[in-house]
């Protein structure tokens, strides 16, 4: 394969300025790359377009192995199926084993298997080591161990495969002794997922400390030793999902999306040091005073999805665009949502209206009188869309809304001469319609007095 020649003036000194190297057949350049450490070979992509093309033309493999077996009552029969599966994997991996003169890239190695005997662990070890030697970019392991068979322990070298950008482990075990305290070696992962993994939370912290490029981290329902999450170094982390944990302490200055689900757990003001979070979802956690000053903790927050248990909730933020609240307690919560603290001060000429466009409420408890709740909500923000999750209990609330949110008069007389008008003065139109979703929703839309377009208030149920 001949690349485009670059014609250059020949230097009289004899130093040939022509890009002769690109005239080499591709397989020879592949051979030269093969003779270098993987890191140096990979770097040649940046030399020029033709070198990038050479790298892209290296042989690549995508392996997905799934034993597809469901345990049936006959252990012998099951083991036979697994043996057959193991043989087919070995066959498929032959191209990697054969000595070649060129680098091979394993773009993806996915293995889903049930371990019915510990002898299979070493087979898996061999497969992974083979892939490790061949510039593996993404590894996915989902290994279920049958009772009495120990969990699969991930080989230590896997973490240090330099080309590995994505690692997903489900049902495995990670030992802590890979990572000594004098850890200086870097791990170049960009995405790490640990689901139902047997690992100590301190090991996880150590691993993350070595990952300068990590952008996404998920920890889900891991063992008892990992019910805590402690992340103190995550310079590039953008997205974090922490499920099934009891305690969180995370320091991630560039984090933008954070999803937490407790087991249940407890959060406090120490839990988060992530100023750039834009999307936050929290459920099954006691949040104590965390949300009293949302603005200082998460100044850039735009979307908040919160399930709260405390009896009092106070949120103040001026950037929030979407708010979703779920209160599973049957107790009446005292809701105080002020979207800017100065709102209720009489000194301001015009009360600032929050820009929350989408407000979702769930599990609104049955109350005698919803007026206070509605006033509290609509004082602070004039959402364009108000969604109410419809269940047997919220029917009352919906009815209340349809009665109250009606335009009765042109200019309501309720607030007199006060320059602070209540929400009734801003309500332009109300429309009620069913909201198409799996769950039934009631959608109530409220129009902002400051906007020109009249969006109807829609009550959907």
């Amino acid at each position: 394969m001949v690349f485009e020649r670059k014609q250059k003036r020949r230097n009289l000194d004899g130093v040939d300025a022509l890009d002769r190297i690109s005239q080499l057949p591709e397989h020879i350049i592949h051979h030269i790359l093969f003779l270098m450490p993987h890191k140096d070979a990979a770097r040649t992509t940046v030399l020029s377009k033709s070198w990038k093309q050479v790298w892209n033309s290296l042989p690549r493999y995508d392996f997905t192995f799934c034993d597809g077996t469901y345990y049936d009552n006959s252990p012998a029969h099951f083991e036979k199926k697994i043996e057959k599966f193991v043989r087919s994997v070995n066959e498929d991996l032959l191209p990697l084993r054969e000595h070649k003169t060129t680098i091979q890239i394993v773009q993806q190695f996915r293995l889903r298997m049930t371990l019915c005997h510990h002898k299979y662990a070493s087979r898996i070890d061999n497969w992974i080591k083979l892939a490790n030697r061949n510039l593996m970019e993404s590894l996915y392991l989902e290994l279920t161990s049958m009772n009495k068979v120990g969990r699969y322990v991930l080989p230590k070298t896997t973490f240090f495969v330099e080309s590995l950008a994505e690692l997903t482990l489900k049902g495995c075990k990670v030992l802590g002794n890979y990572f000594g305290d004098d850890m200086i070696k870097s791990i170049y992962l960009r995405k790490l997922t640990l689901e139902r993994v047997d690992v100590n939370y301190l090991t996880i912290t150590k691993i993350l400390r070595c990952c300068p490029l990590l952008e996404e981290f998920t920890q889900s329902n891991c063992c008892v030793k990992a019910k805590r999450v402690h992340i103190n170094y995550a310079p590039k982390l953008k997205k974090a999902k922490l499920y099934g944990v009891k305690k969180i302490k995370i320091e991630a200055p560039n984090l933008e999306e954070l999803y937490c689900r407790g087991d249940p757990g407890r959060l406090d003001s120490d839990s988060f040091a992530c100023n750039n979070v834009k999307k936050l979802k929290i459920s099954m956690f006691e949040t104590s005073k965390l949300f009293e000053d949302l603005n200082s903790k998460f100044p850039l927050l735009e979307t908040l999805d919160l399930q709260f248990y405390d009896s009092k909730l106070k949120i103040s933020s001026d950037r929030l665009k979407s708010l979703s609240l779920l209160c599973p307690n049957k107790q009446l919560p005292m809701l105080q949502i002020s979207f800017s603290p100065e709102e209720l001060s009489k000194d301001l000429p015009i009360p600032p209206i929050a820009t929350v466009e989408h407000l979702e409420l769930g599990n609104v408890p049955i109350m005698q009188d919803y007026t206070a709740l509605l006033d509290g909500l609509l004082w602070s923000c004039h959402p364009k869309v108000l969604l109410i999750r419809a269940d047997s209990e919220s029917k009352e609330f919906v009815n209340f809304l349809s009665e109250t949110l009606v335009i009765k008069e042109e200019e309501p007389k309720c607030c007199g001469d006060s320059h602070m008008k209540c929400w009734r003065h801003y309500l332009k139109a109300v429309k009620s319609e069913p909201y198409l979703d799996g769950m039934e929703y009631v959608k109530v839309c409220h129009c902002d007095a400051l906007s020109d377009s009249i969006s109807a208030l829609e009550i959907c149920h």
Partner: protein
Amino acid sequence: MKFCAVKQYFDDENNNNITSGASTTMIPLPNVESHPLAILITYCKKHLKIKANNADNKKETEKEMEQYEQELLKKVMPQELTELILAANYLNFKEALDFFCRAVASAIQNKSIEFVRKFFGLESDFELGEEEKLREEFAWSFEGVDED
């Protein structure tokens, strides 16, 4: 097998040894410059000589060959390496090809991109931002590199 391309040329005449010296046939080699060809011939002769000297001792052969190769590399300019590879490839001279490939590999490994570009006489022809994106994507390969 050395100089396979040339050998094939001689097959008709049933001549196995190109260094026989007696042949005066003109073999056209349009893609090989005289300088690299001279080096390759020297390399080949040396290799045969060493092999002959240490007929039974393979290890000795290897050792001597390595010494010779180190000496040779000192005299060869980096830019000439690419010429030598092209010549060895055209002539189908496997040992020399391997040797010079290894020489190139060790010359450019652990060196910065700028160094390697100069070495090969390359220029970056990426569009604006394209190189940045690639460097990002391959960030793992740039960690801890000797930037000279």
